[in-house]
């Protein structure tokens, strides 16, 4: 197997790189999992710019990024295959087309939001979105929790946070600060799983 820091099998031009990201950005309907799937398909399987192992190593690293992990992953991939220019092209290529589609849809929604039909649709789509969001967060917890007996510590902490969020109205800033301290003290071990599971 290639060492993780080996140079990529082939080196793309910035134009080719942009084209791959635009495909990911416009076809990845369905959020994190489908975006990740398309990234791997385009970058590793179809164009061979990274080995599978390099992709997984960058994926593991992206899991410790602040903000949107897949944006960090795009930046790491861009940096590996084409340096600083690759970072810029990857971020713009991943974000701008998808953001423009999101913006267009949002503008469209705003134009028709006062119609009875759209109000009724949102009365159903809203709760579905809330449920999906909660489900995604629970899945994220499951992927983050350690395995074996230590999982009970992780889930107990997560349950305590849900309770604090629901009933104490604690500021997110405080909960995150507590998370850093609790994490450093009690939740160490098992680095991010590089299994290619869903990211957000």
């Amino acid at each position, binding site marked *: 197997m290639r060492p993780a820091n080996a140079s990529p099998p082939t080196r793309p031009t910035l134009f080719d790189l942009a084209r791959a990201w635009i495909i990911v*950005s416009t076809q990845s309907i369905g959020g994190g999992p489908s975006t990740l799937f398309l990234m791997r398909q385009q970058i590793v399987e179809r164009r061979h710019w990274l080995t599978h192992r390099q992709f997984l190593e960058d994926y593991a690293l992206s899991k410790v990024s602040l903000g949107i992990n897949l944006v960090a992953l795009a930046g790491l991939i861009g940096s590996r295959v084409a340096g600083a220019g690759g970072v810029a092209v990857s971020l713009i290529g991943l974000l701008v087309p998808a953001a423009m589609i*999101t913006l267009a849809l949002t503008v469209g929604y705003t134009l028709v939001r006062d119609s009875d039909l759209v109000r009724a649709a949102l009365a*159903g789509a809203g709760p579905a979105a809330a449920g999906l969001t909660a*489900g995604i967060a629970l899945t994220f917890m499951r992927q*983050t929790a350690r395995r074996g007996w230590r999982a009970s510590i992780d889930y107990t902490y997560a349950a305590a946070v849900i309770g604090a969020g629901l009933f104490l109205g604690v500021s*997110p800033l405080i*909960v*995150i600060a507590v998370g850093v301290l609790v994490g*450093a003290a009690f939740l160490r071990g098992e680095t991010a799983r590089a299994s290619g599971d869903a990211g957000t």
Partner: protein
Amino acid sequence: MTGNIELFLIFLRAAALSVGGMAALPQLRQDLVTTGLVTEPQILAALALGKVTPGPTGLYVVSLGYFAAGVFGALLALVAAALPPLGLVAVAGIVRRQLLSPWAAGVVRGVVLSTSGLVVATSITLLAPDRQLLGVPAWQLALAVGAAALAIHGRTHPGVVIVGGAAVGIAFGR
């Protein structure tokens, strides 16, 4: 102008204090709703729109930015969302090994469990303000629980769940 800078900083702070796209939601909701820039129904609409459009889930911030301040607000939200991940790219070459250490994993695990827990709590309170779940119409409650189960199961396309929810809304919500 001050308003735009303030809005940018709201989005930047939420992104810089979270791990994962959805994780910024509790902070964004607190900052945007309390300042009156965005309403709670708009947050639900942004989440729904974000689920039917391509790209990372975290791009619902573009809708929130638009609701708060139009197209320029959407641009501010997008730029703010891109900056914290760039920080990782900048330091990855120097501290790659440290970032993959068990210690860093513990810190990240603490932050992810914290923000995920808050996202669950936020989702519940978006559905039922004041936590009065009994006050929510049964069909809406069933939709939310069903959507959560489908998200955990992971086989159904989120866009399909949202469109299905909208169809149920048109059937029951008028």
